[in-house]
Structures are given as C-alpha cells and as structure tokens.
C-alpha cells in the first residue's frame, strides 16, 4: 500500500541526495580546474625561468668576446704562426674562471685545430657553424652518459689578398662544455621550483634529453611541438609544458604528476562527502519526523474510516488539535455520528418492515390454509353428491341430465387439481431450501422411470435418452420436481407422435451449468415463449393437452430460488427444448 508517511521522507532523501551529488560533482570539477590552472601557471613560470637561465648563458658572451680578443685574432689571422703564447694566455684566462670543465679550441676555417686547452677532445669536427657577430650554441651531443654542447664564434671577418686570391683570414673559437648530470643538480633545480616539479632538457629536434640526473628518452613529438599543457605518460600520468630556448636548438620541459594536480580535488571530495552524507541523513530524519507528525492524525482518521467502512460504526477519532487536522478529525467525527444515526434509523426501519412482512406472510399462510381446507370441502361435496346422484338415481335421469352431471364431475375434478397446483406453487415461495450435493444423472433416471411407467399405455414408442449430467448443489426434492415437470411436459406434448423422443443433457457455461430437456413433440409458437413460465399460462387448449398451467411456473420458481434461469426454444410441430441453469457444484 502506498503511504504518504513513507513516500514523503523518501522523496526528501532523494532530493537531498541529488543536490549533494550535483554539488560535489560541480565542486570537484571546479577545484580540479583551479588546481590545474595553478599547476599550468607554475609550469610555465618555471619553464620561463629555465629558458632565461639557458639563454642568458655567460658562455655565449665570453666566446663572443674571445673571438674578438686581439691576441687570438692575431694568432688566427697568422694561421697559427705567430702569437701562440699570447693566444694561449688569453684562452687560459678564460678557462681559469669557467666552472665547467670545458675545452677551448682555436681552429682555422677549414676546421683544423690550431690550439686547444682543457679536456674532452671530441674529434676534429666543428660542432657549431659559428656565428659571425656572436657565439652560437650547437645541439646537445651524447657520449655514453655525458651530454656535451658546443659554443662557437668566428673572428671578425678580414680579407687578405695574397697573390690575387682572396682568402679568409681568421678562424673559429669553439668551446665544448658538458652538463653536470647528477642527482644533486637535479635536486637543487627541483628545490628551486618547489618539490614535485620535474625538469627536462634536451634538443628541440629530439634525443638526447636529460632530467639533469641522467639521460632520459625525449618527450614525444606532440609534447615538444605543442608548447601548451599536454598530458603524457612517463612512469605515471604527467602534465607537461615544453618551451624552446630562443637562440639555441634546445628546449626545456617542466612536468608535474597528474595525481598531484588532482589531489586537491580529491581532498575536497574526501572532506565534503561526509558533510554531504550528514546533511542527507539529517534531512531524512527531519523529513521522517515531520511527515510522521503531519500524517499521524491522518492515519488516525484513515483507520477510523476503515473501521467504519467494515462495520464498526462506534469508531471515532481522538480530537485535540486546533489546526486543519484537528478540524478534519472533528468533522470526521460529526460525519461518523450522522452515519451511525442514519444506520440505526435504517436498521429500525428494516426491523419494522420485516415485522410487517412477517405479519403479511403469516396472513398469507393462514389464507392458503383456508383455501386448502375450506375450498376443497365444498368442492368435494359437489363432486361426491353429483356422483351419488349418478350412481343411485341413474334410472330416473334422462341422458341429457346424465351428461350435465358428467360436466359437473369433470369441472370439479379440474378445480380440485387447480387448487392443489396453486397451493403447491405458493408453498414453494415459503419453504426453506435444504441444499446438498445432488446427482442430477441419477435424478433424471429415476424421473425417466416414473415417466415411462405413467406413459405405459400410450400409443407409439417413447424413448428417453439421458446424457451424462454434472452433479449440482441444491434441494434434491425440488430439483426432482423440476426434472419431473419438464419430462412429464415433454411426454405430454409428444403423445401424438408414433416415435416420441426425450433427450436430457447439459453443457457448462462459465460458472454455471445449463441443463436441458428436449423433445420432438408439438412444440410451441416461439412468439409466446416468454408466456410459457407464467402461472395459468397455457399455449394449448385443454382439449388438445390437459394441465393447469402451473407446472412450468413451478419449474421457474424452483430454479430461481436456486439462483438459476429458465428459458425455452421451440417451433410449432418441431419440438421444444426447455433449459435451466444451476450454479456449478464447486460453489
């Protein structure tokens, strides 16, 4: 059963849950968005710091300056022939105050090394095509676990003519540096930007890359190309921003694990979810309490109404509130009072009418008793004395007088029969039914035997066929009378037939059973079918077929008292079928 008392708190709970879920979802999304943009700003900032760091490298200025140093320019212009000591001294000056364990090389334009200091001889190649005005950085180069890079500058261009051919006088100053890759470097860089950020550094074009502690694979091309926040996997999901170092072939990338970005949003969820749950629970409790408070009086009224509906008219609702619910209880009680009063009034009336009816019934009883007794006595006297006249004074009566006495005789007999039938019919309405299971087939067979015996002197054959009949529930004696009346009727109206046939059968029809008695006798005009079952209604003259016209009325009354129906089908000279229904035996 649906109940407001239950559905209202459920509704409130559902509403609060929905609001809570929406609130948490939106909050989570916003916190995540905020922490993502904070992370992006931080990554970009760190990127730009790094880029500045690499771009403003002092090495470039130093090499540019070195390429313009007069001693070196002189040494290189002489093709390494003169001023070697001075050049070396200039180189040493620089080498001494550079922290990187670099190598400085002076080469001529064909790449031949004229002079060098420091470690890391990487061969004869010029690593960078030197810039004319300022030094240029070359791409990172990897040798095993070490990353190198070159910085190179050319001496200011001077043309010398020697024997008609113009040749470039001067050379290249190249420094080869290497990156300090160790955990300390990485950690000190990381410390600069705050714990969880990782830095990557490498060639914009691809490998090699480093995280300043070791060589790492280059980030995928999409990371390197996009310059916008990108997600990628390196051990775990990371958010990364790459930025090219202007004026160099290098690139920096700063990354942050996604989990750290999402962490605040998750923390928000973790903090807010219990609060939301608490609100939902509190809301549910309040709604439950409120709906109980609101519906408890309604439940009282409902219970009282149900009690009254099931017959307990004394039921009332306890009053005691002065709001709408209190007024409802009050008007309910008033209504119940009125219902109760009119019910008692009705009962009194019914009792009064019943008493009146009982009186009428008793009067009817004594009336029919009088009819039974007092009407028959004079009739018997008429008949008796007419017979005595015929028997004792036969000789003195002429034939006409005898015929007239015969008429009296006939009519008194008929009157007696009418009285008997009428009494039987009126008795049917008054006697109680004694119901029980009735074997209809056996009953039909007994009646058939009676009918055959009564019709033993008829002209022509009489065949009675009885189909299997389902048992019924009813008054055995009265049901026997039904079958008997119908079969006697059938026998009567087939009397003229040389081979008369009566058929008793049945078929189920929903909850009831239809029984029928069918004959091939005189039949009747179907137009008067509804008159067949009326008292004293006859469709044939007394000369054709005898009878008082009460038999079928009795059949109808008995069947109706069993809760069934009767009807008939037939046509003149084509037989008749009389149907009656009885409730199925299961009931």
């Amino acid at each position, binding site marked *: 059963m649906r109940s407001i008392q239950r559905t209202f708190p459920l509704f409130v709970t559902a509403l609060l849950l929905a609001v809570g879920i929406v609130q948490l979802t939106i909050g989570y999304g916003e916190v995540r968005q905020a922490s993502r943009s904070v992370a992006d700003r931080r990554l970009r900032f760190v990127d730009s710091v790094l880029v500045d760091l690499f771009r403003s490298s002092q090495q470039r200025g130093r090499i540019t300056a070195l390429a313009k140093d007069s001693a070196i320019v002189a040494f290189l212009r002489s093709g390494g022939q003169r001023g070697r000591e001075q050049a070396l001294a200039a180189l040493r000056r620089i080498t001494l105050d550079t922290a990187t364990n670099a190598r400085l090389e002076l080469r001529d334009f064909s790449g031949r090394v004229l002079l060098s200091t420091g470690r890391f001889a990487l061969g004869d190649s010029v690593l960078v095509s030197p810039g004319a005005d300022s030094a240029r950085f070359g791409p990172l180069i990897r040798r095993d676990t070490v990353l190198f890079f070159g910085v190179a500058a050319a001496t200011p261009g001077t043309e010398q003519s020697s024997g008609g051919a113009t040749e470039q006088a001067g050379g290249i100053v190249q420094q080869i540096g290497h990156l300090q890759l160790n955990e300390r470097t990485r950690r000190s860089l990381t410390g600069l930007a705050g714990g969880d950020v990782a830095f990557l550094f490498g060639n914009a074009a691809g490998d090699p890359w480093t995280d300043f502690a070791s060589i790492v694979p280059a980030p995928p091309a999409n990371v390197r190309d996009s310059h916008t926040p990108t997600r990628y996997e390196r051990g775990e999901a990371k958010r990364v921003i790459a930025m090219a170092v202007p004026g160099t072939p290098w690139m920096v990338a700063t990354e942050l694990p996604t989990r750290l970005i999402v962490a605040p949003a998750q923390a928000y969820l973790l903090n807010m979810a219990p609060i939301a749950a608490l609100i939902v629970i509190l809301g549910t409790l309040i709604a439950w309490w409120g709906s109980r408070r609101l519906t408890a009086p309604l439940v009282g009224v409902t219970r009282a109404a149900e009690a009254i509906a099931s017959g307990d008219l004394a039921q009332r609702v306890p009053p005691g509130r002065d709001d709408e619910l209190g007024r409802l209880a009050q008007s309910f009680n008033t209504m119940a009072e009125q219902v109760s009063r009119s019910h008692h009034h009705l009962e009194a009336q019914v009792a009064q009418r019943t008493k009146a009816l009982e009186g009428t019934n008793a009067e009817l009883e004594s009336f029919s008793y009088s009819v039974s*007794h007092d009407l*028959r006595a004079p009739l*018997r*006297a008429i008949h008796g004395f007419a017979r005595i006249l015929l028997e004792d004074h036969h000789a003195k009566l002429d034939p006409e007088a005898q015929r007239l006495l015969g008429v009296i005789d006939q009519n008194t*007999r008929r009157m007696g029969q009418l009285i008997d039938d009428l009494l039987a019919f009126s008795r049917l309405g008054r006697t109680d039914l004694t119901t029980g299971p009735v074997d209809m087939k056996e009953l039909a067979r007994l009646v058939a035997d009676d009918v055959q015996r009564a019709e033993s002197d008829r002209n022509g054959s009489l065949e009675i066929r009885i189909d299997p009949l389902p048992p019924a529930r009813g008054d055995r004696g009265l049901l026997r009378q039904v079958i008997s009346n119908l079969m006697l009727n059938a026998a009567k109206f087939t009397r003229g037939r040389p081979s008369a046939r009566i058929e008793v059968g049945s078929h189920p029809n929903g909850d009831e059973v239809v029984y029928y008695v069918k004959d091939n006798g005189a039949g009747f005009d179907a137009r008067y079918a509804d008159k067949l079952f009326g008292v004293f209604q006859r469709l044939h003259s007394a000369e054709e077929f005898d009878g008082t016209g009460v038999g079928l009325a009795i059949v109808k009354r008995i069947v109706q008292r069993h809760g069934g129906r009767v009807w008939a089908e037939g046509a003149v000279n084509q037989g008749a079928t009389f149907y009656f229904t009885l409730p199925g035996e299961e009931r």
Partner: protein
Amino acid sequence: MSPHGVDILLVEDNANDAELTLRALKQRNLANQVHVCRDGAEAMDFFSNGAGPVPKVVLLDLKLPKVDGLEVLRRLKGDARTKAIPIVVLTSSREEPDIERAYALGANSYIVKPVDFEAFARAVSDVGLYWLLLNHPPQ
C-alpha cells in the same frame, strides 16, 4: 350410535363430508358401528365417561369447532387409557406443518381427503378395512 359397540369414531364437523364418509364405509359394509361427533368437545365427551366403548379407530378431522382436532389428538394420545387407540387424521389440509404436528402428537396415519369422490371413497374404505380387519390392536 350403538350402545353395544363402536368400531369407528368419526369426528367431522362438515355434514357433507360425514355423509360421504359414511356412504363410502357403507359400500364396504363397515358402517354398522360408526359413531359421529360434530366437534372436538363432543369427541372428548365420548371418552370422558370412562366406561364408554372403545373404538377400533378414530377418524379425526383437524379443523373442528370448539376443540381443535390437533388438541383432541394431543389429549387422547396423552391419556394412558386412550393412547393405544389408533387415530387416523382425515383432513383437507396438506400443509406440511399440520402433517408434522399430527405425527409428532402420535397420529397413526395422515390422510388428505381427495376432492375426487372415487378417490375419497377408496381412501376412506381402505382406511376402514385396514384398521378394522387387518390391524391387531393390543388386547
């Protein structure tokens, strides 16, 4: 009204019925010792002097003036001296309550008077024959 002996006591208020009954009995030669009472009181008087003759059968109508037939039946069957006398209720009523009460009071038979005279005569003479000739009352 023979002082010497009464075979049949007929209690019947309707003179016509009484005559028809007597005639039916006469046809079987059973009418010699029939005593007729015209109401219930007369019937009770018949038995009240104690030393009176004891009939072999009483034919009792139910609807009687003064004392009702059922009352007569109740008193006769309730009296030790008369309760052995066979009483046949001979009445026009075929009402079930009458039949039940008559048998409950101890009636030995219950005959509904047919309207048809032949049937009536046959019933009366059969009853007379049975109770006078065939039945053996206790001595």
